[in-house]
């Protein structure tokens, strides 16, 4: 069955509980979905408890809508709930990996040469806080990117290999684990899979960026539930002249398509962490994150909220 479009609804809840009172706190949240050529935001709403004493938002250097808020009275917990409905359009129908340009030509075009035209995507060619340019990643990447191979083919092959070679293991890494450490461990979560793959492609000169978002977690009948679906998700985007940015999900070995909702893009996790902040006081803390992503009945034609099944309880 060919599905024309998908309408997905997300309920994302983050709760912090502190052992002592937090006196003041400042937070950045990157939780607002983007409108793109293939993603239309139908509804988005967020709520924060306690109510921030100051709130403001801005578009960052990557085009993400970032929320800044501060809490200036003592609190023992912080809860952020975001409810989103988007409509997704299939986007890879016309992609023929074998017909994409040779990766080495693309890599050469990102190198600076006086008088050559500027390629804005080169912003994503360099080292970033979590992803260094390293020889070990380069060597691993070159196994897929053999000389002259079409870029998309090489990238898909690299994705297959990472999926096969790396184990999905929650808690084996943390939010600030750099790519090369996850590479040595050969394990991690979606963030690590994505950052390793980005590191491999940047090390050979290809522009690659980090995408943060959600994954559908009520698989259509007969399909398995995708990995990483109960939390927020992350994948990779590689620039391919002629095709634009191609989104690949090495955690699930698929092209990101009708199951993937895009929130934000950046160089790595540190640019787009969903919620970060600095608190004064608070002692130790516990955090609970719950994400539910459901496909709506009737898909594109009738995204009525009434038709929406009740979200499942938090995991």
């Amino acid at each position, binding site marked *: 069955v060919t599905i024309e479009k998908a309408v997905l609804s997300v309920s994302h809840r*983050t709760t*912090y509980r502190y052992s002592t009172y937090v*006196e*003041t706190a*400042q*937070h*950045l949240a990157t939780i607002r979905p983007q409108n793109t050529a293939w993603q239309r935001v139908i509804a988005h709403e967020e709520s924060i408890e306690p109510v921030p*004493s*100051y709130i*403001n938002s*801005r578009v*960052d*250097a*990557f085009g993400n809508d970032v929320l*800044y808020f*501060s809490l*200036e009275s003592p609190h023992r917990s912080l809860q952020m709930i975001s409810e989103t409905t988007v409509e997704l359009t299939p986007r890879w129908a016309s992609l023929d990996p074998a017909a994409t340009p040779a990766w080495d030509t693309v890599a050469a075009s990102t*190198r*600076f*040469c*006086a008088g*050559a035209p*500027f*390629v804005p995507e*080169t*912003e994503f*060619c*360099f*080292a970033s806080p979590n992803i*260094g*340019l*390293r*020889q*070990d990643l380069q060597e691993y990447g070159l196994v897929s990117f053999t000389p002259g191979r079409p870029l998309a083919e090489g990238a898909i092959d690299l994705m297959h290999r990472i999926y096969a070679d790396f184990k999905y293991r929650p808690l084996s890494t*943390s*939010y*600030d684990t750099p790519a*090369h450490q996850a590479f040595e461990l050969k394990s991690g*979560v*979606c*963030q690590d899979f994505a950052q390793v793959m980005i590191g491999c492609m940047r090390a050979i000169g290809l522009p690659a960026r980090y995408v*943060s978002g959600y994954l559908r977690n009520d698989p259509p009948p007969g399909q398995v539930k995708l990995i990483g679906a109960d*939390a*927020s*998700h*992350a994948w990779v985007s590689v620039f391919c002249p002629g095709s634009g940015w191609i989104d690949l999900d090495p955690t699930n070995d698929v092209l990101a398509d009708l199951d993937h909702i895009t929130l934000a893009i950046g160089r790595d*996790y540190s*640019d787009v*962490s*969903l*919620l*970060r*902040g*600095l*608190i*004064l*006081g*608070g002692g130790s*803390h516990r955090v609970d*994150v719950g994400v539910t992503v459901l496909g709506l009945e009737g898909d594109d034609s009738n995204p009525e909220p009434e038709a929406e099944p009740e979200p499942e309880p938090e995991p």
Partner: protein
Amino acid sequence: LAVQTSLPFEEVAVRAKVSSPLRALPVREGHWDELRDASGQLRPTWRRFFDLLGDEGIAGLDHAVDSIAQQVRDNDISYNVYADNGEPRPWALDLLPFLIDEAEWAKLERAIRQRATLLNAIVKDVYGPQTLLHKGFLPPALVFGHPGYLRSVKGFVPPGGQYLQLVAVDLARAPSGEWVIMAHRTEAPSGLGYALENRLIVAGVFADQFRSMRVQRLAPFYSRLIASLVEGGRAAMRGEEGSPHIALLTPGPFSETFFEHAFLARYLGVTLVEGKDLTVRDDKLFLKTFAGLERVHVLLRRLDDAFCDPVELRADSSIGVPGLLQVMRAGNVMVSNVPGSGFVESPALHGFLPAISHSLLGERLELPSVPTWWCGEAAAREAALESLDEAFVIPTWPGVEMNGRSPRGFGDGLQPLAKWEKRIEAMPDAFTIQELFPGSHAPRYEESTIAGRSSVLRVYAIADMEGGWSVMPGGFTRLGAERQPSVSMQYGSSSVDTWVLSSHPSSTLSLLPTPMTPDDLARKHRTVSSRAAENLFWAGRYGERAENNTRLMRVILSSLESNDAEGLLDTMVDLAWQCGLLPPGAPRGGYTSASLERMLVANLGEGSTASSIGQNLASQARASGEIRGRLSTDHWRTILTARNDFRDAIQALHPVRGIERYDRVLLTRTLETLSSQLLAISGAQGDRMTRDEAWRLVFAGRHIERVATMATFLRTAVKHRQIATPGGFDLLLQLFDSTLTYRSLYPGRFEVPPLIDLLVVEPTNPRGLYGVYKRLCRKLVEISQAAGRGAHSDFSEATLYAASLRNLGALCTTDADGMHAELVAVCDELEAQVSAAAHEISARYFSHAKTQSLQVSS
């Protein structure tokens, strides 16, 4: 190395009929000689300098060197070097200034003004339209790949498009005599304070030359800097009444150049703050003060970019201000310089500047940069590798990680390029190659000899809000150590004053502020930051503690010496132990007079324990250093001298570690001297400080400490049943500094009730417990009124307690064992009261809550 065949300096010296043999060593071949021309004759500037100095002056140079060292010590000018276990190193300042004549300076000034304009234009373009990238004048790697390019700043335009207010340019002179630009500093350029301190000292040593040679003054430059910040602050006030509040943001006392931050803040008359002193509320910046929050409109920052805001930049920064960028973007604070200019400091940029200057300014560069090749451009890389055998290999950006190797791997000094070729090919962007630049040799006086040392001159420029740049006539010149290819204060270089000569009489303007308004006056005496409050309080406590411990030490040592110690030995051990004169691990008993004395003497110095006399003096100096702006110069100098003299004397006392013999006379004299110095310090606090809330905090600190110590003295004597023995009686009177008073009031009488009356009840005794406690309570009430926070009670519970201290009858009663139990109970209670008051003050007025960073993984 070859030797230049120019005439030595003796020729001139002979003409001046100098008795001391002043010799000038020839400079190494291939370097410009600042002192002599090609024929070996002194250059006109130096000829004039030495003529003015005359025979006598030349003979007095050694004395002048000592005088400089003395002033560096007296003014406590220091430079923290990370490698030195945190112990600040005295500032290295050399005698002879670096001389620049008027015509030469005019050229430099023009070139620096142009360079500063250019750097601001580059920053403005990169955070704005990025035409330099689009047109290919600037490689993407040098922006997008540089950690100094801050994406949080993208799109932000400061008032007037002025991202930089302060730019430092390092210059050196080529063998031809032409100047070349070696580097730019825009993030948080250092040296502005040291330059001024160098000037104050060296201009004093060579006062005649300074006047006669019409050296241009620095003060007008600093007033222009303040004027520029005030102007920026007005924009941030958005029409608000009053004058802007300017603060200098320092990483804190552990920073390399903390001395300079404190000095600059004092000289410019701005508040010195650390990140934790500031807080962001909504989209405004505030200083936490003793009396609540106070707006800050301008932040002159000395923090590196990445550490400025842990919310948006490095989350692990504990020295930044969470939310600062938010406030900056909202236009409610002027941050100077705007964070994010770090990328123009990259050495790789030099090669691209001629074209960029042409594109942005339509001008040719007035002065070239040192020849530099960025390896990321294949043509440049190949050219450099082909034409150079040896060169400096420097990282294009800081913190480059090369397969886990830190930038340290780049190696110091000249590198054989063949050895580097492979590594460069693997990661060309990360490498920049710079040719060895033989800088000019400037004269340095070293024990009757003048030697040439390679020199780097740092010059500063400041911008007004319209983008006009003024250049400081002078600067910060560093001389390299012998045979050192590069010049850095971290590696043993020294600094000299920089004299720009003029043919016109120079302006005698000192730092004159713009006319003050009544609002300025209203603000003037209000601000006591929470951290200043804490340091004031502790300066008082450490001062009092040093005084009490010194008295205790003198009393114990003189008892031990006069051989009447036997019966009192246990009491003294207990007192010494409780007051921290013995190290915490030391036994509390089993001493002989001799072993106690040895143990006490071994524990005097700074390094020994946290509560030794030396350590208290050091802590007093540190706390006072942070509030130096509130102390008179004499007051501050006495605090420092007390610490330095004591430290030196203790070192002299133990010529070899572990030797048990020491100079007893020297020790006695040292403690005597220290007592008088401490007396002078408490005198200055009583008499020389403005009696505002700052002073009350010092007073409270002193009195809290005094109550606790006096109560300890009294209780210990009572518990050891020494209050009624002649020795114990005498000991108490000495410890309470009350011997004379007692003798004049009760000649020849040794009775307990009059003793207790004098030490506890009598309100006029400056150390009597009741009097001290009562004065403390009054001060606490005043403090809480000054802070004006209705939420807190007036420490009233404590005040009530004072009444029981006046009941002499109860205090004199003894229990069945003959113990003054009531007296002991009162002492215990007093100690508990003041300790509670200290905690209360700390909780109310000081900011010490720790920030912690919080993140969640997706």
